[in-house]
């Protein structure tokens, strides 16, 4: 085969590599530019509670979870895990905050009651906090360390291993 004839299959190689790369990547896995950066400040009006701000939680490791009562099944799967982790680690200084997205108050309250949420949760009118955290779906969870830096972002329902590992990591940092 002359070098000219070999050019045609050779020209296809980069195209095949590009296609292989494209098909193997998940278009929904969007890397967050916020990871390892300072967590954007927020203020939330907690259901049946006072206003809560990230500024006020300075020095505490924070798990910030975005959920919705209409997010089924993922939010329903991880909700008991969130509550159990909160109960397990709150004495060690962990803070957990839930942000209900695009929800009706009655539905959000029913969701919290169903899973016996005892950690502070509040709505996000105008999706201001969600946009500030680059949230595009629910559930999404941010693990914020004691320095107020986003150490890790998880998209989708949390697994027991992931939440345990990430909570331990942000608790450890002094």
């Amino acid at each position, binding site marked *: 085969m002359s070098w000219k004839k070999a050019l045609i299959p050779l020209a296809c190689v980069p195209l095949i590599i590009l296609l292989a790369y494209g098909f193997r990547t*998940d278009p*929904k*896995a*969007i*890397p*967050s*530019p*916020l990871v390892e950066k300072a967590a*954007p400040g927020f203020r939330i009006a907690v259901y049946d509670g006072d206003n809560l701000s990230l500024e006020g939680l300075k020095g505490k490791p924070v798990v910030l979870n975005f959920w*919705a009562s*209409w*997010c*089924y*099944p*993922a*939010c329903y*799967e991880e909700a008991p895990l969130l509550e159990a982790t909160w109960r397990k680690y709150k004495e060690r200084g962990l803070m957990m905050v839930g942000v209900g*997205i*695009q929800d009706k108050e009655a539905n959000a309250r029913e969701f919290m009651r169903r899973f016996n949420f005892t950690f502070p949760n509040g709505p996000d009118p*105008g*999706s*201001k906090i*969600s*946009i*500030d*955290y*680059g*949230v*595009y*779906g*629910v*559930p*999404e969870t941010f693990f914020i360390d004691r320095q107020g830096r986003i150490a890790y972002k998880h*998209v*989708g*329902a949390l697994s027991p291993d992931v939440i345990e590992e990430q909570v331990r990591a942000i608790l450890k940092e002094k």
Partner: protein
Amino acid sequence: MALVCASLLTPLTILAAAPSPPKAEAGSSSPDTDERVRDVASELRCVVCQNLSVADSPSDLAKEMRDLIRELLQQGKTREEIKAYFVSRYGEFVLLEPPKRGFNLLVWGLPFAALLVGACGVYLAAKRWTRRGHQAAPPPDPAYAERVRRELKERGGSSGS
């Protein structure tokens, strides 16, 4: 509220990705501001849709993004500052047109490079074909030429008699 489940492997529910009935935009102001909101929103990708801009998407999140753009414009932020804000939150993915720098230059340059290579190929091929058409015919086989000459002569002789 309509739901869309992204996939079974990553059970992430996309925020109100399905269209909801269009609602009046909060804080609608002058037509000039509406036009500027549309301008900026048309350059941003709706993060819960497939290939729709924030300007064109009927989703709740896109509507809230438009409200935020309006608010930022009213605070005196420029188009570039607002785009930079969204990029700092969602990454460059949020821009409908990738910025013309670094690796992205490939996306912008490759179609033109391919066009150029194609045009060169067509030019070279056309040149070769025309050259072949103009080439002088090869000299005839002497034996064959002699036979043609003889037969013509014979035919000429017979038709003349």
